[in-house]
């Protein structure tokens, strides 16, 4: 009893401490959310106070002036497709690289890893896309995003796929499964926590990016949601309350995705298999 009791107390202390710590994190976010409901003058104090009146009209205005419905669709499409391509391709590649421990696979791994360090060069990328003949198209942006995040995804997957025991593969092979089958049917579900984590991170990184669309999408009707914030950078001043409302709306989809994906990260299946 003493041990369990101690455990329970320890948990409470930790929980209490963490709740306190979370307030540090919440502070600026609360300012953001409250600010988005304030009037233009009120928001300038950047304080924790509640709005005098809740200006829901801010959100309506932001939605309309920012063309958010179109921007949202653009973002969803671009982010969704490029994330899916990236995750599927990268996890498949990492699987092979993790299983085949040869010099070649090691070299390929390094090749991918360098992508984390090497700087992206916008001008030369534009030239490549021009050469392929589809500069300005959404497809080019999707493929660029898929490429840019490959290093990150491969890096993350490689680390975790190693924790899946080979024994599982071997059994499945004995059953006549192909390597595709092993990967998609056995390994992928087992690395669900990692899949969810990587998926959310790649999605987030693509969603929030504001440089690629500016250089590669010439038609502003194809712009993504985060860029809509520039609608509210006035010539002489900034309407912070509208900007905040815009930020809240833009961050909402990713946040919802995270809450949704949390479930899968939490319900993690253990990689430890018990052979019976």
């Amino acid at each position, binding site marked *: 009893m003493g041990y369990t009791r101690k455990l329970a107390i320890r948990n409470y202390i930790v929980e209490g401490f963490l709740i306190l710590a979370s307030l540090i994190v919440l502070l600026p976010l609360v300012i953001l959310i409250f600010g988005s409901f304030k009037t233009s003058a009120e928001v300038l104090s950047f304080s924790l106070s509640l709005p005098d009146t809740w200006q829901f009209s801010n959100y309506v205005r932001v939605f309309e002036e920012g063309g958010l419905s179109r921007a949202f669709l653009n973002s969803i499409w671009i982010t969704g497709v490029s994330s899916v391509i990236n995750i599927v391709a990268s996890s498949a590649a990492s699987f092979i690289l993790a299983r085949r421990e040869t010099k070649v696979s090691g070299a390929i791994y390094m090749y991918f890893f360098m992508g984390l360090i090497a700087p992206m060069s916008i001008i030369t990328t534009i030239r490549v896309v021009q050469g392929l003949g589809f500069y300005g198209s959404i497809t080019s942006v999707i493929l660029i995003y898929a490429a840019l995040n490959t290093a990150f995804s491969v890096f993350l997957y490689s680390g975790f796929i190693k924790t899946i025991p080979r024994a599982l593969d071997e059994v499945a092979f004995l059953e006549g499964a192909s390597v595709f089958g092993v990967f998609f049917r056995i390994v992928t579900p087992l690395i669900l926590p990692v899949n969810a984590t990587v998926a959310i991170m790649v999605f987030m990184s693509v969603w929030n990016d504001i440089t690629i669309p500016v250089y590669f999408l010439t*038609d502003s009707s194809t712009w993504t949601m985060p860029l809509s914030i*520039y609608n509210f950078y006035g010539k002489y001043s900034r309407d912070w309350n509208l900007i905040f409302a815009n930020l809240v709306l833009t961050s909402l989809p990713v946040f919802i995705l995270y809450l949704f994906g949390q479930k899968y990260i939490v319900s993690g299946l253990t990689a430890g298999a018990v052979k019976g």
Partner: protein
Amino acid sequence: MYRGEIKIYNRDCKRIHIKFIKRFRGGFALKTHKRKKAASIVLASLLSISLTACGSGGNDSGTAAGGDSKGAKVTLELAISKSSQDSAFIQQDILDEFEKQTNVRVNLQLIPAEQTTTVLQTKLAVDETPDIIQYNLASAVTDLNLERNFEILDNEPWASRIVNKDVLSSGGHLYSFHVSQDTGMQGVVYNKQIFEDLGLSIPTNYEEFLAICEKIKASGITPVFMPYKDAWAANIWPAAAFADFVAKNDPTFFDDLNSNKKKWSDIPEFKTFLEQQYEVYTKGYTNTDVLSDSYDMAVGKFLNKEVAMMFMGDWLIEGVAEQDPSMELGVFPIPSSQDASLGASPLGGQLFIPKKSKHLEEAKQFLNFIASKEVAQQIVDSKGYVSNFSDVTTPELPSYKQDIVDNYITPKKTVLTTDAYMLVDRSELYRLLQDQFAGGLTPEEVLKAWDEKFSQLMQDKGVAGF
């Protein structure tokens, strides 16, 4: 071994994995080959779906708003900063009218304000040039390499009707288009109401300026607002002060400077001017957070009557008036010397045509259209510009503008600020000024460091003499 009965336990000790393995039996061995194909087909189709679906998306937008567009309809790409969205040239009614008359559509490429320069530079570098660009002439010289990239417009049909060619030219040739000959006046923007209330008159020299600052401070209002987080704002005073001094005492200075015969540190008065601006701060006549307050706070500060003055251009007056037409602001010259002249630098918002535009003819057609008497008059009237066309009349100007015209432009008490003579980027100078305000550099050190950087930049650029 154990055929297909690997049991995986999750954290709740439930057996969940057996099903997977069981499914492998039977069907799998036969379908191995097909599975492999299936997976690669899935991947390939994902790619092709996005290619086809989005490929059309990319082309679609080109003719989206056209409606009845049959045949090869030309679309002009006009690149403009998002913050200039209220520019008269791109108002929808003008674009629609143009399309009606010529069947040429104008598509706006909006660029986020902060990235306008880099995006345009990149586009020019990769030959993805828009057909028309709206930009600031003075900056275009250095930022966008005006001479190399843009068409000379000397022989356009409307060129002969231009009254003031200087505000649209560089190096003797006409490069840009505007219906207005407004220049941005840079000096001390001030709240007329406050001056009246406190019985203050416009200072004619530095000592008088300090005196009125003292009076304003005593009344509880911050005399001067300095938003020097935006480093360029710290250069308004020096740019005007230097130019004014040089115009009266050393007219060839800038030529000498640009051919390395003289340096910034050579003129001791420059040091004084930098000291002056800093003194206003140290004497407590400004906002406390000089280095963290930014330009976008300025309008609010004036509207709330928290500040009385600011070293800025007269475009600020317009911004405040938009929010509150009852505010009366004016501008007087930077009081760095006795009876200084009002600084002037070309305004932005001119239209340029890149040489590599894919639709040169149509682009020039657009300029013709705007230059036409009716359209130009319409624009000039709606925006209150000083007309730059011989056959377009200037409407009644807002009072502050009229004041400027009467008190400074007509009696020729203006002087072009140093910006007009610069061939290189001045960001480092702005940063050095920030350093001065952070207490790190003396005016001497600022000028010396800027001299070094300046000659290095000129050398990199290949200017003769460096």
